[in-house]
């Protein structure tokens, strides 16, 4: 029986990890993620989860210990944010390169300096090219569901890659809302424990991650490319299967009121949620706008992006991170532009930056974006300006 309860995204993640019956958790506390591992420690102490909790001295060690445990065949989990994800960066490449199905939650947070504990997606964007699968979710329910999907995807024999599930620090990590928790047995049936990857075994000695000379290194990397491409297809399958069993599916992108839209905005994370309310508001005033929410960031769901945006006159992409020195705009803007250009979709693109370092993102901020996109559509002229919404110059 499904149990409706009230949980923050942090706690929703902890419940999902418990239901996934993980064997090893290695973590170092960092705001705004800490509640996840606190709750998991509680589950272990209460005997509700039979797992080893390794308290490490840094995030670099957290990922290293997670890799070690995964390489020994354990189902593993860790969580971090911000500077923690940065410190882990070197080891993120090792996790993906060694093809270990690690699942990590990231309560996204701005980067120092100045020190800022609040949310933006600078940390996530820096992990873009690490070879991880990266989801960005938009509610506590979706955080729960995506952690379960992440294990299914990561451990798929044709994928075998680590998965990051990101959500806004505080705005999601600390917000309590309704979450439907399925039966633990049902979750465990959906993601049965099977060691599908190469593991270290003293009876059959093997080396993971040894020297890869020029004759071989390239092929290892190409296999990662193939696996990530495959992950797109499997992620869709996993979402469909999850929907059949648990009654909820999300897609790799989520279109909202795009059917008859003349213009569109693109967003991710909590901002995409507020953006739905803004789209509703703008439509009351006769603006035919729709929203495309990006849920899977890596690998990039190019087909879906092009499919949903091919018929609109103008698209405004809202980014929660700055890509310093980039040719134009924010990091996800660059992805959308690339996807549309390569798919031959000709539309007027513009880039908007907002919600940096926890700057609140109000309905009127999104309405400002919608109005600007509408203006661009009406003018029919391409803009090369990046719009920094709400900044004091």
């Amino acid at each position, binding site marked *: 029986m499904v149990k409706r309860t009230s949980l923050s995204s942090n706690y929703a993640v902890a419940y999902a990890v418990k239901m996934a019956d993980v064997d090893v958790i290695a973590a170092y506390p960092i705001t705004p993620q800490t509640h996840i591992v606190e709750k998991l420690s509680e589950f272990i102490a209460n005997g509700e989860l039979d797992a080893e909790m390794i308290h490490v001295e840094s995030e670099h060690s957290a990922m290293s210990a997670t890799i070690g445990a995964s390489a020994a065949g354990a189902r593993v989990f860790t969580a971090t944010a911000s500077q923690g994800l940065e410190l882990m960066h070197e080891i993120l490449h090792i996790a993906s390169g060694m093809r270990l199905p690690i699942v990590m939650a990231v309560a996204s947070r701005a980067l120092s300096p100045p020190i800022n504990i609040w949310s933006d997606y600078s940390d996530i964007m820096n992990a873009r090219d690490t070879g991880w699968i990266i989801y960005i979710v938009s509610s506590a329910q979706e955080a729960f569901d995506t952690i379960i999907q992440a294990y299914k995807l990561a451990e798929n024999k044709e994928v075998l890659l680590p998965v990051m599930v990101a959500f806004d620090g505080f705005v999601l990590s600390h*917000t309590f*809302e309704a979450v439907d928790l399925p039966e633990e047995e049902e979750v465990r049936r959906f993601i049965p424990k099977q060691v599908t990857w190469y593991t270290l075994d003293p009876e059959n000695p093997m080396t993971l991650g040894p020297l890869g000379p020029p004759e071989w290194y390239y092929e290892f990397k190409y296999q990662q490319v193939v696996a990530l491409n495959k992950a797109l297809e499997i992620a869709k399958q996993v979402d469909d299967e999850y929907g059949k069993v648990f009654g909820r599916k999300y897609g790799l992108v989520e279109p909202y009121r795009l059917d008859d839209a003349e213009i569109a905005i693109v967003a991710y994370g909590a901002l995409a*949620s*507020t953006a739905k*309310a803004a789209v509703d508001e703008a439509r009351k005033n006769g603006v035919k706008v729709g929203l495309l929410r990006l849920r899977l960031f890596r690998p990039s769901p190019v087909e879906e992006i092009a499919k949903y945006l091919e018929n609109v006159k103008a698209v405004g992409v809202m980014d929660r991170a700055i890509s310093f020195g980039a040719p134009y705009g924010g990091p996800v803007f660059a992805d959308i532009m690339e996807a549309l250009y390569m798919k031959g979709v000709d539309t007027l693109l513009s880039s908007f930056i907002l919600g940096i370092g*926890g700057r*609140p993102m109000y*309905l009127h901020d999104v309405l400002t974006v919608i109005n600007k996109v509408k203006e661009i559509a009406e003018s029919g002229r391409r803009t090369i300006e990046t719009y920094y919404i709400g900044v004091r110059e």
Partner: protein
Amino acid sequence: MIEIRWHGRGGQGAVTASQVTAEAAIIEGKYAQAFPEFGAERRGAPVKAYTRIDEKPIYIRSPIVEPDIVVILDPSLLVSEPVLDGLKKNGWVIINSKKPVDEIRKTLGRSDVKIARVDADTIALQILKVPIVNTAMLGVLVKATQIVSLDSIIDAVSRRFSERIAKLNIEVVKKAYEEAEVSG
């Protein structure tokens, strides 16, 4: 949609109260959201928290600037914090105060809002033996506004705390509910 803004001081339990209220609404099959003003958690410092309740899914995730209800857990915040900012006409001020409603109205300087109050300090000290007034404020809130039922609040309180603490807090909720002075 009903939007509530909570004003308290670190340690009074404003954040917990915002969550218990959301949970009570969820128990009733409604949609709800509760979140703190992030980052200022220090004992004694002014804190804000927010609750949204609706019959349909809630998309908006920004702080509440035009609340229907403000709940003030510490009357000293009336002079030090802009607690009434954006409060809608005919909105509610739910306040912990020893003073009668008429006197509170004069201090507020607004004739277009409804007021409900209880002496939450005394109730909390009497029953809980600590000045944590959040559950007393829940009693006044539901009596005045009926945004959720008393039963749902009690249910939410019992889910939130351990059995012993929940029992005491339910007593607090009920006493505040009975003693609340409500001026519509």
